[in-house]
């Protein structure tokens, strides 16, 4: 039997253990990514120069390499980069010509709105549909929802985005074709409606893609819950219909659904890379592509670390929320047992 007092110490220990794990993880990610980046056969200077290759001579290229510190041996570059990292300095983005942390901060703010909206949409819709499918298991609604989920799971994110773009922006002209703000409007005149209008299609794209796993897992959780002993007992007491779902199923199904939803931040971010590319939405996802295509090693490393923390934090929050909803799981590291 657990009481609050006895639980406190393990919680502290768990937090310490988690933090240690995160630090270890980040170190590993940093080292591994750096090794990968440095060994890339692609010449970053050539990528930076791009089409200007006609007008730049070897002397200028040497200057560029020098400015980026590409002359130093790899291990020195890593040590200085890693040292700066410990001091909170993520380095300097080459393509954006500003500190990595600033780039990430700026771009992430834009992505945050997109991801949060999509996350909520897919969570709420997915849970609702999964609930319906699970309760109506085997009936038409279930089959339709399940089929749709499988179809969505098989559809490439960017293609869904392309279709939406074609239908709603190009053909119907209902939504803007690009960007996060209307064209030519100074920042202080951009209204909430404008932002939402520009957010709508990318967010829908992103949520459409994330919805399938939520639906299917919720459905399974509902089916499991409905087959469980406690629902049998509730039925034996005359509980049925909406009451059964509300009182005996929702909470049981919500815990795994939330855990999944919080654990899906990584996928969500991956999706945002593609959605932002399709809709020219200037967020962190688009910056990731730019960094990868432009050989911007410091930015790419920064994004890798940042998203690792993001995913880690998502899982952590998910575990906490799960524990709130499902008292049995408290103090148990779910990730290890799943």
């Amino acid at each position: 039997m657990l009481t609050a007092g006895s639980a406190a110490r393990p919680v502290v220990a768990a937090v310490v253990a988690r933090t240690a794990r995160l630090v270890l993880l980040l170190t590993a990610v940093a080292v591994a990514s750096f090794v990968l980046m440095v060994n890339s056969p692609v010449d970053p200077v050539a990528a930076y120069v791009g089409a200007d290759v006609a007008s730049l001579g070897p002397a200028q290229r040497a200057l560029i390499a020098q400015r980026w510190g590409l002359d130093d041996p790899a291990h020195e570059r890593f040590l200085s980069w890693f040292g700066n990292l410990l001091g909170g300095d993520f380095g300097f983005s080459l393509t954006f010509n500003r500190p990595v942390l600033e780039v990430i901060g700026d771009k992430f703010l834009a992505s945050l709105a997109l991801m949060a909206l999509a996350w909520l949409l897919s969570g709420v819709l997915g849970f609702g549909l999964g609930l319906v499918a699970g309760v109506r298991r085997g009936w038409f609604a279930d089959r339709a929802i399940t089929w749709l989920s499988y179809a969505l799971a098989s559809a490439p994110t960017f293609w869904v985005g392309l279709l939406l773009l074609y239908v709603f922006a190009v053909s119907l002209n209902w939504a803007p074709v690009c960007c996060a703000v209307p064209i030519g409007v100074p920042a202080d005149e951009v209204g909430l409606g404008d932002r939402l209008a520009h957010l709508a299609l990318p967010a829908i794209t992103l949520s459409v893609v994330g919805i399938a796993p939520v639906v299917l897992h919720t459905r399974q959780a509902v089916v499991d819950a409905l087959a469980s002993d406690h629902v049998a007992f509730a039925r034996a007491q005359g509980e049925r219909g909406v009451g059964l779902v509300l009182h005996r199923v929702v909470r049981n199904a919500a815990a795994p659904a939330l855990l999944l939803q919080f654990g899906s931040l990584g996928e969500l971010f991956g999706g945002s890379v593609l959605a932002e590319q399709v809709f020219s939405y200037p967020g962190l996802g688009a910056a990731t592509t730019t960094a990868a295509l432009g050989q911007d090693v410091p930015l790419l490393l920064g994004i890798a670390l940042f998203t690792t923390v993001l995913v880690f934090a998502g899982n952590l929050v998910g575990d906490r929320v799960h524990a709130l909803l499902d008292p049995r799981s408290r103090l148990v590291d779910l990730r290890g047992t799943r």
Partner: protein
Amino acid sequence: MSTAPLLEIRSLAVSFTQYDRGLRRRTVTALAGMDLTADRGELVALVGASGAGKSLLAHAVLGMLPPNAVESGTVRFDGVVLDPAARRDRAGRDLALLPQSVTFLDPVTPVFRQVRRAAVLAGRSAPDAVAGAALEHRGLGPEVHRRYPHQLSGGQVRRVLTAMALMGDPALVVADEPTPGLPAEAVRAALADLRRIADRHRAVVLITHDLAAALEVADRVVICRHGRTVDEARPADFHTDELTHPYTRALWHALPGNGFRLTEDA
């Protein structure tokens, strides 16, 4: 007042379809022909080997079989034939299931809310007071109200389940395998509880595989084998060796206390 027994089950059969590895379909006949009656004030034990589908009988009586199950036979309640839907309607009020395992409580809802919900379903007014009283009556004070099922001891769980099952003052209580894994004293206590329920003018059907324990509390014992009722006897018949059916006799003599032997006709 009809003279028919409160519960009368005739030739109840249940089968359903299952798939094996490789998706080979097989139709599993879980119950092949069960006959059972129980009247108010009576505790009837249904005894058979484990895995013989006895639990399905409980679910069938309450109309809660899974959708892929096919049911045949008749179930009469107070002399009226009830189809599964009608039985479902009466579940919780006239018919109650009394399980004994912690898994029958919702793991993510505090105990009091579950009991209170049972009171609401039973149509009781002032469900808060009723629920509190029902727990109090079984020796469970406010300190357990906010606990989750996994924080209760086995005995507490049993009392909570009983409080919920009896909330609607049912005429019939079906107790499903209440004793496996319990130490002897606990088995005795659980069965004594059931006896008391029967003594309060309710019909109790006790589903168990423990013949010896059942004999101590039951008014009648129904023996089933391979999903079919084969015999019905009174506890006294066992002790005086007046058993007529060979399987019942074999079962009795196979018990360690009664010779631990195989009768030739088993």
